[in-house]
Every structure is written in structure tokens, then in C-alpha cells.
């Protein structure tokens, strides 16, 4: 019995020490610009990069921190993860000059990357966020932004963001509202087989290339008002539990709704299709 207690104590001390050292090294490496690769770590406390980063004056009311490390978290657990702070008079912005990857990670709280600039790739592949995801105003320049297989239980804000290249949401699940309003997608947007369990707002979003929403499920309201798709828009086998709104939407490429249960009345007069939409049941 005694031995068992000692063993458990040693394991606890080891795990705590490991988590602590991961956090400490992470801060140091971030400042030095050393590449960071952390696997299987548990961050017991919130990670707030605005407290770790060294900011310099960017403008009179904006401070900027540039992170030159590649950051890769694999199978890590976080509480809240924050990379943005804004007050009445001062805004703290973080620019990741290389990749920011969360692979198969778990966030017990919120993930806030609002207004961040990511020059490299960004990934949340197979990660789970228990609360909200905020990418509002983010600018991602890398060749891919990968959200495939991720799940978010809180509100997801990907509004007013710019994705310079391809985005991939394949098999993602969103349990609360998702907002893409006013975001710009310059590369192909793969949003197929996504489960939108709550309302979704694509209104005012701009897709320069193809938008692929095939086999996605919209369980509640969906809004595509003033949506602007320059490439093709594929809604094959897309399921809408409630009629979507396409008021003033513009489709300049081919719009295909094969196998989708969309009510053709949803594609009302105010929506503009450069070529006749394909609607085959």
C-alpha cells in the first residue's frame, strides 16, 4: 500500500514537473525565436501570449509582437489560449512569422486568435475547443489553413478574416453558431462534410475561388445573404434542415445543388447567378 502511494506521488510530481517545464521552455523559446514542438503536454494554466511576448510600439495605439518560432503543439491540452488583447486606447497584436499548428489538441476554455497575423500555415486539425474560437480579423497568409476534423462547442467567429490561400474544414463539427461574415477567402474553400449544428452566417463573405460545401449539414438557420463566390459553388448532397437565405448573393461561377434538399424558393430573385444553377434532386 505504502509503495503504491509513493509510486503515485512520484508519477504526479513527474507529470506536474513535465507540464511546468513545458510551459517554462515554451516561454523562453518563444522569446528567442527557437522552433517549438511540444507533444502530449498539459497546460494547467491559461496561456496568454500577450503576457509572454515582448511588444514594441507599432503605432501610437498599437503594440506588435513578432514571433519567429515555428510553433507546433501535438496532442496537448490547454485551458484558455489567448493571443490578442485590446483596451480602450491600446491594442496588442501578435504576428506569427512562421507556422502555428495545433494538432489533435484540446482546449478546455476559449481559443482567442482575433486580429492575429499568421504568415505561415495555421492548423487546428482534429482539435477540440470546449468553449469559443475567435479568429475575427485574423489574416492568414500560409498556403493552407487546416480546420479539418476539428470540433468547437462554443461560438466560432471567423468573421472579417482574410485567408490568402486554401482553407480546409472537412469533417469539422460546430455545435454553436458560426460566423464567417465579411471574411475573404482567396484560395479554394473546402467546407465539405461539415456539421453545423447551430446557425451559420456566410453573409457578406467573399470567395475568390471555389466554395465546396458538399455533404455538409446545416441543422439550424443558415445565411448566405450578400455572399460573393467568384469560383464554383458546390452544394452537392448538402442538407438544410431549415431553408437557407440567399438574398442578394452573387454566384459568378457554376453553382451546383445536386442532391441537396434546398428549396428552390430560397434562391430567390435577389440572388444573382451568372450561369443557371444546377438543381437536381
Amino acid at each position: 500500500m505504502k509503495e503504491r502511494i509513493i509510486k503515485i506521488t512520484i508519477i504526479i510530481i513527474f507529470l506536474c514537473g513535465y507540464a511546468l517545464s513545458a510551459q517554462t521552455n515554451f516561454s523562453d523559446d518563444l522569446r528567442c525565436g527557437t522552433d517549438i514542438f511540444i507533444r502530449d503536454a498539459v497546460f494547467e494554466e491559461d496561456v496568454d501570449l500577450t503576457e509572454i511576448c515582448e511588444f514594441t510600439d507599432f503605432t501610437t495605439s498599437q503594440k506588435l509582437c513578432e514571433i519567429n518560432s515555428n510553433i507546433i503543439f501535438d496532442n496537448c491540452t490547454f485551458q484558455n489560449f489567448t493571443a490578442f488583447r485590446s483596451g480602450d486606447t491600446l491594442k496588442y497584436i501578435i504576428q506569427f512569422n512562421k507556422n502555428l499548428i495545433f494538432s489533435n489538441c484540446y482546449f478546455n476554455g476559449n481559443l482567442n486568435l482575433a486580429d492575429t497575423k499568421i504568415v505561415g500555415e495555421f492548423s487546428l486539425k482534429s482539435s477540440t475547443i470546449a468553449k469559443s474560437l475567435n479568429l475575427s480579423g485574423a489574416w492568414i497568409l500560409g498556403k493552407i489553413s487546416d480546420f479539418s476534423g476539428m470540433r468547437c462547442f462554443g461560438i466560432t467567429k471567423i468573421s472579417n478574416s482574410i485567408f490568402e490561400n486554401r482553407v480546409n474544414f472537412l469533417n469539422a463539427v460546430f455545435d454553436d453558431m458560426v460566423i464567417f461574415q465579411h471574411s475573404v477567402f482567396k484560395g479554394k474553400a473546402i467546407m465539405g462534410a461539415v456539421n453545423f449544428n447551430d446557425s451559420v452566417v456566410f453573409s457578406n463573405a467573399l470567395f475568390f475561388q471555389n466554395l465546396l460545401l458538399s455533404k455538409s449539414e446545416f441543422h439550424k438557420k443558415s445565411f448566405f445573404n450578400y455572399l460573393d463566390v467568384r469560383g464554383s459553388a458546390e452544394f452537392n448532397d448538402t442538407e438544410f434542415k431549415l431553408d437557407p437565405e440567399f438574398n442578394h448573393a452573387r454566384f459568378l461561377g457554376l453553382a451546383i445543388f445536386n442532391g441537396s434538399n434546398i428549396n428552390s424558393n430560397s434562391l430567390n430573385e435577389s440572388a444573382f447567378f451568372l450561369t443557371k444553377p444546377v438543381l437536381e434532386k
Partner: protein
Amino acid sequence: MKKFTKLFAKLIIILLIFTNCEHSTTPQSGDDGKNDPPYDTGLDRDKELQTIDITPKDLSLITLSDQNINLLNRVMLYDYIPPVRSQENYGTCAAWGAGYYARTIMYARENNLSKTDLENDANVFSPKYLFLSTEYRGENCYGANPFYVMKALQDKGIATWSTVPYDDLGNCSQNTTGDWDNEAANYKIENFRSVDPTDHNALKMYLMMGRPVQLSCNLGLNFFSTKDEVIYDDDYSSEPSEHMYHSMCLVGYDDEKGASGAFRIVNSWGENWGDNGFVWVDYNFFSDKLCYMAYVIEGDKGGLSEAMVDEKVINPNFRVDGDDLLTIQFKDESDPHGDEKQDRVLTYNIFNRGSKTINASDDWNIVYYYYNAFNPEGDFGVILYDYYTDDVGSEFYGKNDDFDNVDVPMDKYGIFNWWNYVDVPAGWSVAKAVYSDDGSDYDFEFSYTIPNLTGDYYFVLMADGFNNIEEQYEQNNFVFFTDENRKPLKIENGIIQNETLHKGKEQSSHAGEMKRSQPNAYNIEEISALINYQKRNGILEAAANKNKSLTKKHPKNSHYGKKIVKAVLNREM
């Protein structure tokens, strides 16, 4: 030919789209090379932040809480909204939100005006007049603090559009004319209050009551080019110092609109902006980012306070049929025997000027209550709970004591609690009834310690604080402890800072005096409703326990507590 025309039209559209694409939602560019917004705003947020703490928070929803109002799914004040117009290139938004929209909507509702009536400029109010009569407005017609805009509405009123049209504003340095002021005085508001913009149910309740809400908003870049789509988020990528602050008016809501319900806001940028001058804003975005302050105005509440000017209400020699309690003595002074500056002596007495005995079995009380002058819902407490009851048992008839000295469970609402088993005959004061051995008149003295408060406070002595007795006049039950100008007491760590406190009458105020001198102060109906709400919901008792632990403890048999003293002949009430 038809086919060719169709193809040509499509080509033109494509050309237009590609020439505009990336900047289609960006504001127009100004001469200085920066992106200047295409519409003017004009909310002086820096000055507004300085007056937040002196804008009383509204209590309407507390005072209405007994009415069990069920929220409707959708409310629109469209019928009372004047035609949408534009503030043009002037920073006068606060005057538009409060004057042109909120005041006109209140007036239209109170006078049952129709949409056609509202097309007549004699029935809508002038933002120009309101802006010109606002103190501390910005130079060159740019910027105002909503607090001072609404204060101008309260102090001076507002003229109609037909008398003061929105033209020839010049640089807004001109004064209002006598004719304008005379007309404006007819349309003053009774008070203005702040409300919590994150409390959606409260905002919906105001709208259900037909009351528009003036909003202070922080605009993102897309707001300027918004159309008829619900706004869920906005682009705040500009520097904080370049954020645009703007006043607008909340005029409706719809729980079914958009993804999760939305508020309807009317703007002063003309009909070509937004959805014919209006906009839908998602509930979450509304309180998360867009609006940081909200205000309501009260057109004319009327009520009991005005009746205080009537001598028969406050004259103890005027006897009434039925029950009526009247405060005839009130003083609150530094305790000459106290150890600390927080130690004070309250002298008080209540007179039964009705025709019947007020019995202890009525379980009534005298309450000495303090509240933050600008936030009574969040900062309050009962200093003295002086309870008149027969609960203690017949063996205690005629006696009075501390709650701790009798083994009967009684709710404790005060930091100091006292029971009295006495009946108060008609024509007797309460103190005389407690000490009825000789023919003299007596008052109560109560030594107490102010809790560790810091801020602006009113203290109020309430006879029958929980409304157990139905009286002829309720308004004469209240006497406020104020500074000599009826302003709140300034307290730091429990010590009153005002140097201008006088003895007697100057430090106390009846409800009518309060209303005349401090029109934004809470009236007795509000305070009475608040205290009863707090009692019903256990808030008062919880606060008493908390406050008790924060207040200095006095040893038993010290001079602290309630005493009977001979009344001075010349009462100063």
C-alpha cells in the same frame, strides 16, 4: 437581340464587381489619404466616460417587477418613429438620438400621434436646438456627451423642428433664441437614467413599455456600408484611437431575426444608409462590441412626489381620517461620545396623525436605509431596522430592546435591529407611546456607526418602510439625509466628507424638495419599490448580514443603541 442585351448586362456587372472587389466594404477615402468614414458621428466618448458614475442607473424594471410582464418575441416602435433623416456633415448624433428620435417617440406615444402626424414638423423635435443648448459641446458642430445632451433636455427642453429646422448650423457657436427656449420649455423630460446594454431582457422590457433606448456605440469599419443584413461582427482593425463613436436609438427587437435574434436600431444617416436608415444587430454583437452605454428618458412620470408641496401632507396639525404616519423629527449628527468619526447619532420620531391607533400587531417598522445615489440596486443597506410588533409575546407589552435580548426568531434587516411592543394612539408620536409615563413629548436617539462606505450616498428614514399599513399619504413617510443643497453625502471609508452639513432642516429633505433640487435623484416610489423588492427576494436580509460583519462591533451596555430623549420644543422638521 434580347440575348445580346442580357449578355452585355452581365458583362457590365462583372466589370463593376472586379473593379470594386476588395474595397467594396471599405469606407471612402479622404483627402488626407486616410480612410475617412463616409458618414459623420460625433459622440464624445472621453467626456462620456467621465460622467458615467454620476448618471443614475434606472430602476424601472425593479419597480415594475410585481407586474409579471411576459416578454414578447417581437416589438417595434415603428408607429412612433419620425421620418428617417440625416445629420449630414455634422457631429450631432447625440442630439439626433436623444432629441429627434427618443424624445419624439416618447411624445408621439404619450399623445397618440399617427405616422401622418409625425410627417408634420410641428410634431417632431429639433436636433439643432438640442445640440445648440448642450453644454460642453465640441467646436465646429462636432461632438457631444450624451449626459449633457440629456441634461439639456431636462433643464431646457427641446423646440420643435418647425421652429428650429436643421439648417444654417454654421459652426454651432450661436445661442438659442428666447422664442425657441420658450417653446422648448414645454417639452422638458422628467429624468434620464443609464441602463445596462448587456441586459437584453431589460432593453426588451423598455421597448415593450414603448420606451426607446439611446445608445452609445463603437463602430467598426463595415458599419458604414451595411445594408439590410443582420450585423454579427465588425471590422475593428483600425487603431483604437481611430475608432468612431456614435449615438443611435434602439427602437425594436425580434427574437426570430437572424441566427439568434436581433435588435433594430434607427440611425441618423438618412434613408440611403442601411435598411432605409435602420439596421439589424445580432444580440450578442450588440452587447459584446457595438454598444457600451444605454440610456432611457422619462417624459412625465408625475406621481406622489409633486404632492409634497401641499401643506396638508406634511403638517402634523392637519389630522386625517384612517391611518397616516408622518416623520416629525429627523437629525443625523456626529456622535459627541463616539470613538470614531464614523460614529453618529440619529434623532427621529414618527407621528400618528390619523384617526386610529396603529397597533403593534400590524408588524410595521421604521427603517433607516442608505443607498448609492447613482446605483442603489448595487450598493445599499439598512442601518436601523426599528420593528413594531407583538411577536415577542404578551409578557413584553410596552417594552423595547435589541433583537439579541429576546428569544424570538425575527427577520433581521438592519445592521442594528430593535423591537418595540407598543401601540401608537392617534395624535401620539411613536416615542411618546414607547415612553408614556408623563405628559411630555419624546424623541428617539439612536447611536450607530456608518459602515465602511465610499462614494455618494443618500440616507433615508422611512416610516412603515415595508408598506404594512395602508395610509392616506405615503409620501410624508420619507425624509432624506443630504447635504445642504440636497446633493448626496460624500463618504469615504464611512466618514462623511461634506463640510457644508448643517444641523436640522438643512441636512434633511422631503421628497418634494429632493425632486425640485435634484431631478435625476430617485423618487420615493422608486426607493420604496426597490426596498420592497429587496425584502421579498431576501436581498435585504443578506445585505444586513454582510454589512453587520463589516461594521464595527460595539460592546454590550455601551452607549450605542436606541434611547429615549426629551423632545426639543421647536422641532426643526
